[in-house]
């Protein structure tokens, strides 16, 4: 593999890792606050649809982004209602949300656009276009560094940069701010937060809202950045891979970045090469497809260090039985 091909693969790794990263960080906020969320998939899907739908109707991708975020946050709200207010089972709520998104997106798309559950293809201002960073062209001549800068670092849509910027931001929020301290505490020992005079419910709703926001961006990126429009089920299991990445990352922001890049790389390689030939030994494409999941199971099995989830995760906070 020559350097340029490598750059290309890494370039698509970045693109493919972006929705994973956003969803993974979304899950991180939620699960750090003690709310398990297997509904990342559904939220992304919903956001993908609404961002594409609104972008195509208004011609403004920014309005689309807002609509995507709003729709994802509505689902977050439902998840919050079920798992915080009504102390329901968070996993079941997540399953329901995934179903809801899978059904509603197509239903509404069909009702609005009559294109078999698709939105019209987005044109011009309806999409996030790639940004060329300053000097990308000028520097592209410089060996190694030039192409790296021009191909890999420059030339992505704004949301890619947003996603990557979210990593340090998340870290800083989590470990350097009051909000982060409380958020982490509420996922570990909500009763400690409660008796310290801080609202558990408020914190958890805030976390779930941030989760919705980030999933919304992830979905909007899928439909208006990576693609030009919505097609049904376009998240294609990315929510679950993000969840896998979150476990892989042991619920930490920087690790999340590496996990998502790794899974993005796996996807990029699986996309580009069908069956990978390792000197006579052929890795079938199905193995590449399943690799993120297999890796997650291996991690979960504790063969590569134990992933300990937030202690109060998955449990509704109940004071009075």
């Amino acid at each position, binding site marked *: 593999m020559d350097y340029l091909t490598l750059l290309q693969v890494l370039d698509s790794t970045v693109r493919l890792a972006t929705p994973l990263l956003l969803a993974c960080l979304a899950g991180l906020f939620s699960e750090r606050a003690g709310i398990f969320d297997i509904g990342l998939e559904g939220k992304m899907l919903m956001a993908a649809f609404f961002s594409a739908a609104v972008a195509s109707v208004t011609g403004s991708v920014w309005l689309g982004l807002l609509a995507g975020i709003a729709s994802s946050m509505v689902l977050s709200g439902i998840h919050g209602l079920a798992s915080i207010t009504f102390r329901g089972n968070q996993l079941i709520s997540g399953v329901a949300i995934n179903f809801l998104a899978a059904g509603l997106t197509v239903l509404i798309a069909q009702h609005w656009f009559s294109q078999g559950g698709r939105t019209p293809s987005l044109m011009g201002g309806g999409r996030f276009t790639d940004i060329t960073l300053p000097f990308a062209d000028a520097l592209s001549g410089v060996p190694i560094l030039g192409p790296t800068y021009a191909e890999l670092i420059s030339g992505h849509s704004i949301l890619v940069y947003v996603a990557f910027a979210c990593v340090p931001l998340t870290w800083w929020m989590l470990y350097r701010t*009051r909000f982060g301290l409380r958020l982490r*505490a509420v996922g570990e020992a909500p009763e400690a937060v*409660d008796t310290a*005079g*801080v609202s558990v419910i408020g914190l958890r709703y805030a976390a779930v809202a941030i989760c919705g926001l980030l999933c919304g961006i992830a979905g909007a990126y899928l439909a208006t950045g990576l693609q030009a429009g919505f097609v049904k089920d376009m998240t294609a299991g990315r929510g679950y891979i993000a969840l896998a990445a979150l476990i892989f990352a042991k619920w930490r922001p920087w690790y999340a970045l590496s996990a998502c890049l790794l899974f993005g790389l796996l996807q990029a390689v699986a996309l580009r090469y069908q069956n990978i030939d390792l000197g006579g030994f052929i890795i079938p494409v199905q193995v590449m497809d399943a690799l993120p999941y297999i890796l997650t199971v291996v991690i979960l099995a504790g063969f590569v260090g134990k992933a300990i989830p937030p202690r109060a995760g998955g449990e509704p906070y109940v004071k009075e*039985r």
Partner: protein
Amino acid sequence: MTDPVPAIELKGISKAFGPVQANKDISIRVMPGTIHGIIGENGAGKSTLMSILYGFYKADAGEVFISGKKTEIPDSQAAISAGIGMVFQHFKLVQNFTVLENVILGAEDGGLLRPSLAKARGTLKKLAEEYELSVDPDALVENLSVGHQQRVEILKALYRQADILILDEPTGVLTPAEADHLFRILDNLRAEGKTIILITHKLREIMEITDTVSVMRRGKMTATVKTSETSPEDLAELMVGRKVLLRVDKTPAKPGAKLLEVTDLHLWDENGVERLKGVSLDLRAGEVLGLAGVSGNGQSELLEVLGGYATATGSVRVNGKEIALSGRDCTGQARRAIGIGHVPEDRQHEGLILPYTAWENACFGYHRDPSYQSGILMNNAAIREDAKGKMERFDVRPPNPNLAARNFSGGNQQKIVLAREIERNPDILLIGQPTRGVDIGAIEFIHQQIIRLRDEGKAILLVSVELDEIFSLSDRIAVMFDGQIMGVRDAAKTDQRELGLMMAGITGDGTTDAAKAAQHG
């Protein structure tokens, strides 16, 4: 003195949890600068009342006055601003946070952590000096001993400048020495003019440190008296509503053959910490061996090993025969088969399946017994019949085998477990905390059953954190500290003081080195 304004006044507090009326029309006044005790049986509603005062629960009815001002306390935030701090029965700490982080949680000074942490570090240092409350601010809470965790809780309250401090059963988890230390701190705080409410089950502590005391029974406040004007016997009567015997009548033991010999038992927990460090003891037919000690010093682990659900190394002989301490044959089933009955320490989490009916519970652990089977199925009718008999004989109320175990009160739950284990007629009975969470009336009954069993020639190993209980039941008393037996004493020839010292790791000859003591013993 003219009527000073009470620091706290509660008027007509009521609180129901579903069908359970935890607090009924409770009123109470606590004067500033005093220590006010609250006693009452388990489930009387003490914690509930205090949690209402602290805004953790919301009362259904009633009013709260702080320093004479009517105060709404909808949440803990309001309580904290009203100057109330509370140390809960079950600590409310974030285990994987540092002490410092736990202390500032909810009381940060701004959006960013750094300044808050720096400020708290200073304040903590001052408080530690003032009140003998030193803890390493950077230690993770999960690595602290229970006593130190309690200090963190107290520091949390003081950091929030609490004038009123509520402590819910603070000494349950402490050694006598640690408890003494705590009481010194409370004395200091009282001297500073702070108001303290102390919940405890130990009448001795009430008599020792409080100024006034309230008694609760079944959700109601039955009396409030000056401590100096009452006695333990009076308080016990107020708690239960009738006269109680605080001591059990029993004849001297007639010990027989050695039924159980334990030699050099070692146990490591999942974190690799050694919890039993070479325990040796033996137990004879017809005697009660009391195992005293502050909880967490290996008594539970010892019971688990003997009961067959923890693995250990060493040797245990039952009736002279070696039994397995790990592997396939180390199960509760195998232990029951050789005549070891076991009343576990925690009936709600071990002894019973709360959602199971009483009859299902009455065969729990013995459910593989052939008499309960018909073919490949369980013979539910037979089990139910069997359970009904047991419940009647043990006066379980109500004697309805179809009721779920969770619908019985603690005392009756305990009776179900006792009936199950005792009626099996085991040679050896392991009993952990037989009367924890049981009202004094039921305690009498349970104690009588234990003594009856002893008199029938059974061997009984009794684990209890209540020294009073150990004294009233045991023929011999062994004290555990830090995973070792500190020594075994004849019950008639020792006293609370000696045992208290042993429980703190100090043997009679004054050595504090536990390992050395173990070699002696």
